């Protein structure tokens, strides 16, 4: 039976994500050469998604479309109490309900939050499974609980975890001497910023189907991490990893909430084992709201010193963050890294509460930290009467850790500033925040962004050539909706002189060559270089074959327009298809994403520029325009890259203005576990979005010079909106979401001063 401790990735999910995103400790000597950038034909251009038609016409199979013969429906019974001892569970009544095939108690002594799993059933259909859940008799002994951060920090507050205090320090980092730095400053300012809990809410809720074939387990999962799920399942069930296959076909996003093994997947496997039939469990929207993660809050107090010319002399941050029963997010990474500042002190604390645990959420910590830091910089700039963009330029650095570390492998943030400012018309901003007249005010704001996103060395991909001229690209990555299939096809086609539609993409199966999780902006910079490596090997092999046929040397051959051509005599050529026949059997070329040289920091950068309109009478904010300039190195496919930016900005607008998990502090219940009351932006709320990719060469990072783009467009948007609102009305809304009530209150406070 499953070992309880291994039910979910016991590894801290935040660590899992950020460590992978950093790609630390994986550098090797096997670094890419710094020779000239190759010429590309398809890479860097617009290619329509190869699966786009299938997706928008409803033909692409998502988890819920998969129906297996004899498949049962699994459901989970969850605790209605925020904190309770489970005294006893009686399954007998549920078991005797006709149509119920298995009922299991989940061997748990305590429920720590509303939604904590307690028992599970498998039945012939959903209604029967739901009925069975009601027949499970659980005796709870309610325990004292705490769901508000403030109360949890009070002395004598009920303990959330038996073995740790409610408040734990999660970071204490210093450099230089902040007190000295404050003394050197002309202006010292202190401000507090707050961000709400955001729920991932992927369009497709979590779900898994488990099926046993003898001692082999096959799982279809809605996951960002097929290999992690496979390893986790093997560990939990005590079976060899090689006997587990995890398949993920099409997916309606995850945003970090599907990065590891989920309890419901293990439960499905256990129920399938017991019943000898496949079992499907899909979570409801409510379960999705309660128990598969959220973005932790932040309560960030900044103190900063600045000279009149804009030089930062010292910055300090104290942050309190709650991720319910899980750890909160460290928010200080941008602060520690992106601007030159010799004196710095960061203290961060996590506060536990009896609420569903956090999980990595698209740019964990960076989103919250950027809202605080970049908002604070604008307030500092205003104090000294400086253009906020100039303040950032003034403290620009090409070395990480605030100019105290190693050089960035490339940093195009300056170009992002230049192009973004030009495109939005930065000169139009109010020179003094709130300078406009009337009840409808416009303003401009901006924010920088830093993230990791170098990719993971060791990622593998195969290119398989068939004698009929067809080509497979095979990689155990997953396309979670971002267009991975398309970028793989683009890279292989470009390298082999073919078109993307000529390539058959095989991914989403853990039996395929290893690739990392799709999270942390890892996928493209991991997978694309591996595909490139394998494709180059295939190309070399074909060139040698063609050279013999065409009686020239392999170096003289180029692959273009589905042909292998003698560069010196274009008439002398052979078609790809004809040449492939000579392969006689399928031939596989193994590619790998190699390591990166030591001595550099590998990061992505960007800057967002936003124009807003604020109605001072109603407190309503309308985002009019967003210019999103990004340095993500070599763009593989501009079409899907732009989609990525539009998606990130959309999600950012949504959380800046609307999204907030709302909890009743007295009862511990989540009052908005649905899409009516948990408000997500609609198409009517999304402005014109103009993505810009700055052309920056990174010779160190990988053979394609490509960096990730998953989180970057999500990071600076809320801060840029906040700053634009500040520019429009002269008061800073220091809390997300910036709803009308907060805007009105801030305006009122300003009037009162």
């Amino acid at each position: 039976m499953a070992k309880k401790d291994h039910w979910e990735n016991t590894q801290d999910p935040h660590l899992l994500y950020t460590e992978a995103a950093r790609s630390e400790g994986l550098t090797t000597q096997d670094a890419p050469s710094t020779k000239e950038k190759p010429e590309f034909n398809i890479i860097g251009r617009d290619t329509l998604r190869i699966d786009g038609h299938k997706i928008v016409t409803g033909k692409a199979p998502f988890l819920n479309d998969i129906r297996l013969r004899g498949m049962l429906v699994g459901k989970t019974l969850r605790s209605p109490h925020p904190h309770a001892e489970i005294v006893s569970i009686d399954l007998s009544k549920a078991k005797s309900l006709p149509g119920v095939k298995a009922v299991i108690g989940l061997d748990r002594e305590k429920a720590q939050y509303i939604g904590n799993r307690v028992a599970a059933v498998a039945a012939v259909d959903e209604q029967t499974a739901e009925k069975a859940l009601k027949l499970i008799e659980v005796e709870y002994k309610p325990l004292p609980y705490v769901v508000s951060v403030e109360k949890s920090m009070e002395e004598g507050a009920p303990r959330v975890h038996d073995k740790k205090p409610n408040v734990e320090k999660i970071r204490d980092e210093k450099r230089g001497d902040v007190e000295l730095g404050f003394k050197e400053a002309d202006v010292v300012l202190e401000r507090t910023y707050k961000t709400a809990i955001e729920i991932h809410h992927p369009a497709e809720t979590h779900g898994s189907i488990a099926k046993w074939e003898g001692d082999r387990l096959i799982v279809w999962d809605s996951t960002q991490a097929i290999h992690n799920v496979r390893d986790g399942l093997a560990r939990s069930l005590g079976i060899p990893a090689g006997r587990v296959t995890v398949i993920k076909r099409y997916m309606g996003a995850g945003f970090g909430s599907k990065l590891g093994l989920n309890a419901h997947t293990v439960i499905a496997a256990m129920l399938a084992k017991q019943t000898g039939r496949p079992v499907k469990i899909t979570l409801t929207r409510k379960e999705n709201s309660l128990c598969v993660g959220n973005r932790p809050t932040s309560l960030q107090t900044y103190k900063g010193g600045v000279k009149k010319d804009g030089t930062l002399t010292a910055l300090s941050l104290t942050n309190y963050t709650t991720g319910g029963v899980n750890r909160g997010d460290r928010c200080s990474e941008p602060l520690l890294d992106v601007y030159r500042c010799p004196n710095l002190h960061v203290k961060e604390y996590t506060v536990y509460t009896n609420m569903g645990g956090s999980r990595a959420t698209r740019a964990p910590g960076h989103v919250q930290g950027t809202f605080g830091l970049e908002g604070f910089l604008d307030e500092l700039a205003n104090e000294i009467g400086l253009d906020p963009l100039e303040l950032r330029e003034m403290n620009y650095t090409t070395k990480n850790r605030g100019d105290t570390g190693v050089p960035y492998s490339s940093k195009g943030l300056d170009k992002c500033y230049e192009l973004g400012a030009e495109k939005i018309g930065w000169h139009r901003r109010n020179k003094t925040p709130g300078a406009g007249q009337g009840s409808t005010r416009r303003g401009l704001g901006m924010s920088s962004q830093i993230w990791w996103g170098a990719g993971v060395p060791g990622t593998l991909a195969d290119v398989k050539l068939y004698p009929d001229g067809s080509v497979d690209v095979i990689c155990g990555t997953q396309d979670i909706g971002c267009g991975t299939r398309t970028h793989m096809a683009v890279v292989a086609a470009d390298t082999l002189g073919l078109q993307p539609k000529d390539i058959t993409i095989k991914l989403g199966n853990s039996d395929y060559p290893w690739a990392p999780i799709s999270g942390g902006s890892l996928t493209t910079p991991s997978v694309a270089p591996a595909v490139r490596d394998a494709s180059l090997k295939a190309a070399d092999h074909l060139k040698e074959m063609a050279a013999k046929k065409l009686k020239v040397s392999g170096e003289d051959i180029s692959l273009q327009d589905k042909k292998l051509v003698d560069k010196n005599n274009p008439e002398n050529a052979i078609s790809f298809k004809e040449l492939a026949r000579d392969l006689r059997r399928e031939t596989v070329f193994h590619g790998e994403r190699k390591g990166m040289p030591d001595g550099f920091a590998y990061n992505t950068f960007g800057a967002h520029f936003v124009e807003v309109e604020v109605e001072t009478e109603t407190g309503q904010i309308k985002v009019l325009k967003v210019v999103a300039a990004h340095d993500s190195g070599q763009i593989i496919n501009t079409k899907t890259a732009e989609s990525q930016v539009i998606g990130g900005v959309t999600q950012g607008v949504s959380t800046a203005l609307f999204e907030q998990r709302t909890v009743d502090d007295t009862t511990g219940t989540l009052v908005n576990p649905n899409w009516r009351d948990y408000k997500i932006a609609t198409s009517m709320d999304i402005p014109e979005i103009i993505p810009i990719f700055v052309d920056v060469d990174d010779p160190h990072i990988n053979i394609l010079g490509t960096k990730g783009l998953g989180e970057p467009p999500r990071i600076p948007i809320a801060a840029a909106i906040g700053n634009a609102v500040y520019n429009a009305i002269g008061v800073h809304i220091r809390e997300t979401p910036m709803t009308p009530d907060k805007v009105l209150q801030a305006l009122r406070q300003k009037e009162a001063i």
Partner: protein
Amino acid sequence: MKEFKLAQPQNLAQVTSLPSDQRYFLMAGGTDLLDEIKNEIIDPGVVVDLKSIPDLAYIRSTDEKIRIGAMTRVSELAENSTIKTNYPVLHEAALSLATPQLQNVGTVGGNLCQRPRCWYYRDPQVECRKKGGSRCYAARGRNRYHAILGGGICHIVYPSDLAPALISLDAEATIATANGDRTVPLEEFYTLPRVDVRKENILKANEILKEVKIPPSKNEGKSTYVKLKERGTWDFALVSAAVCGIVSGNTFKDIKIVLGGVAPIPWRLEKAENLLKGNPVTDDVVKQAAKEALSDARPLKENAYKQDLAAIAVSRAVLSLV
């Protein structure tokens, strides 16, 4: 979801003659009712599908009155050209509500009889006063969307956009009962929680809202609907103002102001009406009147902003008519 039986009556009499001790729920478009059933807010027993009854969906002009059948879809109301021309307030309210998808399925009767959206009421695990319990959880809990007027024992806001618009037009409701039809002003159709906290209107067990009637529009009659919401669409009103008046120059000979989103019933703002009637309307006069009329508001911990918004909605609506 609890199991239920589906009844498909052929006429209204079959519904009004149902024994009053039987537990059943009327279903029009089902956009609200199904949500309640699926989330187990109600245990329906029998669902009576009004769609099987012929001739309940119509917009007719008779005796110069406009009669709107309860089963008329909101989208039909929004598209009707007479309503668009003569009763802008109703047209605008219909277009403002929910989303095009919901307008296509939801009906006028369903919209006028929909249940409140209080998130405690919609939580199957919470048994608040409206569900027969002894507490109002919103009073001291999370209440940013709740009532600032008329609350007391239950602080819901009545969620319908059509109701304030229709009331501002002096609409009447026709109710089918076992003893034939009766007609009441729509304004009197809605009842405060203190009358019966479990209900929002006067309908008795086997009564049905059959149609609404709007009196003929007057020549100088003008009307408008201002809805303030958080998002661009798919959002209930934070507050809304339906204003209908007879204007000459910059003076209202007659005016009716009804607010949505502020109280458990569509809230008539008589005080402001009286302050405005017969007086030349200027920016300051309207703002003052709105403010004064709303000074009775009793906001809860998180919804004081609604008092400001209500005043703005009233001012905007009134000023747009002169």
